[in-house]
């Protein structure tokens, strides 16, 4: 009975949370519609929600293709960043000197504007899908390395003492203590990077898409901007946001499944 009651409360909480989100969205759409009506704005400046929806339906093929291409680049970039970031973090966790020597460059990777790096990368790597993935990796890498490296090195003193007591090798300490300790940090870093992955992919597509047959959301956005198709641009904006949310929700779900047994 208590279990059922708890589930019931949880279900009700989820329902009311969902209703609150939908209510806010409906209010926002209402305000948007009211602004267009009140000021009599032309479609080229700000289309109504209905006009935007119609444009999304009309351009659904391009949008779906764009979402697919951008999603592929974002997922692949995030996956490579997770793998590469984990390897870099493990290397950093093994040597204080390596941390001192390498970490400033990883911070540099984060501070250099990606819009300045992307054109260079495209010159070196070509107007290809690969370039989009590389830009995405660069954008996603820092949060993962930052989070995982901290998780690998921030070990409870008692646990370190326990492993010292049993005279454990460095490799075994890494395997049995540091890596499992850092899983939670990997999930947190990946969640942060999941939203950034879509941004990175779209920014790269702005450059890659110029004059090529690449069909990501970024390419669509630059193309529609040139044609002043405001309704289609807003539709692309919603598609980008939806993709970012989907990426975040997927990583969140995977993280929750991995960690579900460890936390209350």
């Amino acid at each position, binding site marked *: 009975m208590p279990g059922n009651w708890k589930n019931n409360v949880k279900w009700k909480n989820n329902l009311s949370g969902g209703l609150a989100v939908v209510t806010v969205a409906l209010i926002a759409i209402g305000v948007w519609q009211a602004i267009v009506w009140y000021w009599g704005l032309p479609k080229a400046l700000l289309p109504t929600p209905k006009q935007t929806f119609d444009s999304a339906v009309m351009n659904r093929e391009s949008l779906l293709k764009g979402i697919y291409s951008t999603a592929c680049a974002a997922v692949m970039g995030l996956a490579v960043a997770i793998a590469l970031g984990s390897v870099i973090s493990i290397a950093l966790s093994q040597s204080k000197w390596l941390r001192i020597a390498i970490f400033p460059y990883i911070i540099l990777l984060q501070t250099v504007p990606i819009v300045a790096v992307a054109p260079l990368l495209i010159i070196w790597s070509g107007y290809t899908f690969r370039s989009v993935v590389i830009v995405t990796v660069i954008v996603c890498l820092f949060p993962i390395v930052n989070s995982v490296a901290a998780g690998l090195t921030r070990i409870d003193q008692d646990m370190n003492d*326990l492993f010292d*007591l049993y005279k454990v090798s460095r490799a*075994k300490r890494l395997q049995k203590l540091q890596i499992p300790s850092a899983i939670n940090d990997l999930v947190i870093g990946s969640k942060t990077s999941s939203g950034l992955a879509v941004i990175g992919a779209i920014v790269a597509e702005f450059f890659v898409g110029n004059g090529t047959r690449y069909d990501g959301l970024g390419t669509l956005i630059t193309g529609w901007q040139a044609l002043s198709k405001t309704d289609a641009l807003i539709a692309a904006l919603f598609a980008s946001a939806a993709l970012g949310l989907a990426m975040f929700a997927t990583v969140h779900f995977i993280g929750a499944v991995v960690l579900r047994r460890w936390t209350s």
Partner: protein
Amino acid sequence: MQRQQAKLIESDHISNQTTNTGSSIDCRCVSLVFSSGTRAVDEVTLSVPAGKIMSLVGPSGCGKTTMLRMIAGLEKPTAGEIQITPSIDGAAGEIGFVFQQPSLLRWRTAIENVTLPLELMSSSATQSQNRSTAAQMLQQVGLADSVNLYPHQLSGGMRMRVSIARALVTQPKVLLLDEPFAALDDTLREQLGGLVLDLWTQRPLTIVMVTHNIAEAVMLSHRIAVMRNGKLAETIDNPMPWPRDDSNRSQAPFSDTYQLVRSVMRGDD
């Protein structure tokens, strides 16, 4: 078994008790000066006979935990010598350590936490043998029904029981406890103190326990070493008879020893 232990106490000869009753611990003029210049432990000489229980008591910052860590080999003395006889010769698993916090790995169940030392020692035992050893140990600490629960599913007292089982799963000759029950309420503290005594009677084991609690030290120990400002103030042999239970608390040996320890701790002349 407790009668046997009581007899052992009566014939308390350090040199006569060796392999079958745990290890004896001898600390000679042990000092530890940290790199900051702080003298944490200053020329402490004390001994724990094999198979006996000693408590290290003293105010916060008196160096008792540092002393315990040196016995465990987690800190190296800057001067003096610590000898454990028979020699454990740097072998892993010969010393069990219970920390103030249970310090369990949250991604491992109770039984997986207890098998951890066996896995770390890379013995020839198989995984199922390790699990069987750990299950027996958990049964001895009263957690036979909780082997597959994760730390977050256990109460504070249960977590500490897992921590004690983990420390004893390698059949160590020496068990070191660093204020293990400080975070628990009085009832749990007494229950777990009783558990430590039960476990001690079942195996050859020498115990050194750091505690703030004078009553706990008097109830559980054969010998009480009082430390102040990094120095050993006094070593008191506890005259309380064995076996011990709550009825001992109202008797003279308990109250006399309690008062004596308290006055040494305060520095009364």
